[in-house]
């Protein structure tokens, strides 16, 4: 990779604007910002740390003046390369814009800066009986600005929705240098839903500088169950049957036998290592509702031949059940120098067929593939274990992953449920969208980002043609943060 250098005049202007301590440009510093949680790598020319929206306006104007690409970045936990400077340029880190500006408990609103860590918001409002519902597994590190960019999900989105369902208003700096406001703290801002359009635009429309979110009341009671199965099909049918009984669990997670064994080996959560699948199901709400639903769920699990159903009796037992799920990616990381996590979505009734196909694909390429997924909403995270130092394995991992995605699309699903398209899947977009769709999306992006300086070469394929597989540059792949 060519050594990234920065135009000295741009560097001087940035230092003048932000102070010398808010601009990184030395090679050893740049190295830290060339990757995120994905398998992608690209070197930026510099990293800047604004403290205010005015700083961001200044940065955007300088980038425009120097015709330099600009990429926003939160904690860098993203799994699709959204925060990587694919074409080089300036990375704007929001690490120093991480304050809670206002908590309005009465109206269940909070106004925050983009660099605020997701879990810190929930922690700050917990004593008020509130939380910020979107809870990506990386929530102890990832930022709300990043969540907004990626429209992040998490295990509890089945009942509570994803980020976009909790964002009411945004302040952002557009690539032209304008500071804009979309939406309002009060509901139903008149006009087109620009807030809804902006959330999930993966940092290609503007740099978000302030976010107004809804806070959700903590449930009075929560019940967590673990059901152990000897057949994946039975576990899947359990998921369908639970909703058929009128119950929408707060969370409904599944792990296959391979993953269970990897996890148990590491976490010792008490998972039986001969099981084919476990379901981790959580119901919450009024005490009476949680109790009733827990009984119903356990009943459905047994009807579908669950070998055992464990119900957590207290918070400690609940944490133990979740420990296995939350540490699954860490456990897998011990088994292989590198792994690649997919993020396909399928209609959940297609789970058994999809798992069979994933297993066939693994055999075809000679990989172990573990399966962890948000079963309730059909969001799969197959984990392919391989050694990235081996070029052939790398290429095969990409090919296997593409075959899995191809199958997801065939059964009516999507290429990404919560990780984003970024630079990982832009080339796969034509499998889902027509040239007309993509052209329209491109022109919508151009409304906000006409010169394409902001987060270039993301989301939309840069070249025409479809399904072409290219091998990414060799990368130090790791899974610092799980999806």
């Amino acid at each position, binding site marked *: 990779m060519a050594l990234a250098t920065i135009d000295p005049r741009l560097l001087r202007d940035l230092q003048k604007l932000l102070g010398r301590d808010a601009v990184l440009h030395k090679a050893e510093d740049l190295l830290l910002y060339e990757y995120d949680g994905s398998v992608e790598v690209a070197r930026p020319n510099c990293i800047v740390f604004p403290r205010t929206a005015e700083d961001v306006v200044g940065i955007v104007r300088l980038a425009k003046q120097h015709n330099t690409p600009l990429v926003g970045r939160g904690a860098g936990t993203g799994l699709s390369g959204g925060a990587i400077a694919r074409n080089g340029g300036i990375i704007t880190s929001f690490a120093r814009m991480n304050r809670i500006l206002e908590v309005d408990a009465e109206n269940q609103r909070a106004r925050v800066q983009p660099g605020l860590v997701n879990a810190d918001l929930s922690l700050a409002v917990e004593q008020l009986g509130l939380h910020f519902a979107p809870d990506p597994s990386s929530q102890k590190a990832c930022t709300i600005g990043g969540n907004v960019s990626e429209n992040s999900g998490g295990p509890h989105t089945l009942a509570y929705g994803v980020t976009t369902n909790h964002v009411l208003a945004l302040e952002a700096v557009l690539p032209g240098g304008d500071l804009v406001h979309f939406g309002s703290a009060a509901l139903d801002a008149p006009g087109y839903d620009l807030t809804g359009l902006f959330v999930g635009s993966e940092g290609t429309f503007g740099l978000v500088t302030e976010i107004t979110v809804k806070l959700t009341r903590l449930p009075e009671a929560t019940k967590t169950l673990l059901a152990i199965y000897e057949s994946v099909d039975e576990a899947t049918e359990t998921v369908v049957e639970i909703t058929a009984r009128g119950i929408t669990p707060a969370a409904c997670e599944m792990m296959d036998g391979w993953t269970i064994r990897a996890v148990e080996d590491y976490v010792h959560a008490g998972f039986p290592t001969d099981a084919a699948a476990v379901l981790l199901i959580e119901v919450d709400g009024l005490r009476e509702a949680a109790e009733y639903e827990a009984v119903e769920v356990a009943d459905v699990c047994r009807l579908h031949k669950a070998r055992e159903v464990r119900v957590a009796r207290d918070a400690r037992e609940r944490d133990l059940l979740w420990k296995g799920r939350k540490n699954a990616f860490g456990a897998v990381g011990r088994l292989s120098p590198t792994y690649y996590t997919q993020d396909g*979505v399928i209609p959940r009734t297609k789970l058994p067929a999809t798992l069979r196909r994933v297993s066939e694909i693994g055999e075809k390429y000679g990989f172990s593939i573990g399966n962890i997924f948000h079963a309730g909403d059909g969001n799969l995270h197959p984990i392919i274990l391989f050694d990235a130092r081996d070029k052939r394995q790398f290429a095969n991992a990409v090919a296997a992953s593409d075959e899995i995605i191809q199958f997801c699309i065939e059964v009516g699903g999507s290429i990404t449920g919560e990780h984003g398209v970024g630079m990982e899947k832009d080339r796969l977009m034509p499998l889902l969208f027509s040239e007309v769709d993509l052209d329209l999306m491109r022109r919508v992006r151009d409304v906000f980002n006409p010169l394409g300086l902001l987060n270039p070469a993301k989301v939309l394929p840069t070249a025409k043609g479809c399904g072409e597989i290219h091998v990414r540059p060799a990368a130090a792949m790791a899974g610092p943060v799980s999806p």
Partner: protein
Amino acid sequence: MTSASASLSARIAEIAGAKNVILDPAELAAYEIGGRAPWAAVRPESAEQIGEIVKFAAAGSLAIVPCGARTKLGMGMPPRQYDLALDMTRLDRVIAYDPGDMTLSVEPGIPLRRIESALVEHRQFLPLVVPFMDHATAGGTIASGVDSPLRQFYGTARDYVLGIEFVTGDGALAKSGGRVVKNVSGYDLHKLMIGALGTLGILTKINLRTFPLPAATRAFVVAFDAAAGAIALRHAIAGSALRPLVLEVASHGAAELTGTAPSSNSAWFLIASFAGTAEILERCSRDLHRMAEQSGAGAVEPIREERLFVASRRTCEFIPAALASSPGAAILKLSVLPANMLAILDATAKAADAGGLRWAALARGVGVIYIALLPPARSEEALARVARATTDIFAKCAALDGNATIPWCPSEWKSALPIWGPERGDLGPMRALKKVFDPRDVLAPGRFMGGI
């Protein structure tokens, strides 16, 4: 008919079939907007036909307004130009329904009632219980952005529309989103379509998430002497562990118009409904009674009707009932933070009473408030009173950082009233988006905010 329009109608007939083109002025009256009828209405049967019609319209500088049951054509400004009504009622199929996946794909012309009966077999439903419920279509509901009392629990269409296919102003068939409940591939263009009144695209397919029907629901009406008590109870419930399906505060007039007023002659009512098993409902009832007592309520009466969602089925018809109750009815939509609901209700009462206007208010617990100003006539004098009251109410709403629009009023008043509320700072990007989706201004031009 002139020869020019004869050739136009011949081309439209070629696309959609002669029997699906309406030219008879008597029939076209049904498509009038603001007293103006289009020169033709056409009933296409496919997205492809719509694409052809739009291309033809774009080439001939014609303007199209899509419609379904035509219950909400009065919303927004009358279009600047209106040549062709695109009657979507032949696109009325359920394209796919997967109860196990809880997803539904429909054509826009399908009545919500038909969706309801298709879903109930599998004990599922859509939480769209909206004005004109007996006639409303899926497409009209989404395009108009009307809300449902069930939003208290289920959110609004933007929370459960999974994807939309639409025809742009260029006549191209495009889409965004998908059919799965979780999906972040591509930009959420479909969110723009919700409430856009057909100005960005003509919906041809709507994918939605469905929800399980609750075992049972139970609704209550709590009487109060003043709005303050009802709002205090709203705050108490919102701050409690209860998760009501519906939580609304209605003035006496609104309760009467929606058939939710019990025998008591109280000035204000709180309407709440809950879902669950008998035991859960018992708990909700107990807590509600306790909180009602603490907020100084009068009687707490159940709505005695066995149907599910009985409260929302009644209050969803507030707007149609108000429109029918006065020839000059104006419906204001205000949204404020919940803590400001009482202030805006007080300001409304003051402004309407000062103008000698009969009025009714229905406030959803989430802070979205519908005010009906009900003058006795549709006259210049009535307009002057409505305009004065609106000015005061909108000023108060703006001072509280709220949003205010007038979704319904007599069409000849619209140029004199702030239909779309005060001008917004984000109108620039909205105009730019309109140019992207409809560069030649074919789709309902002028109907939306800021002349879009």
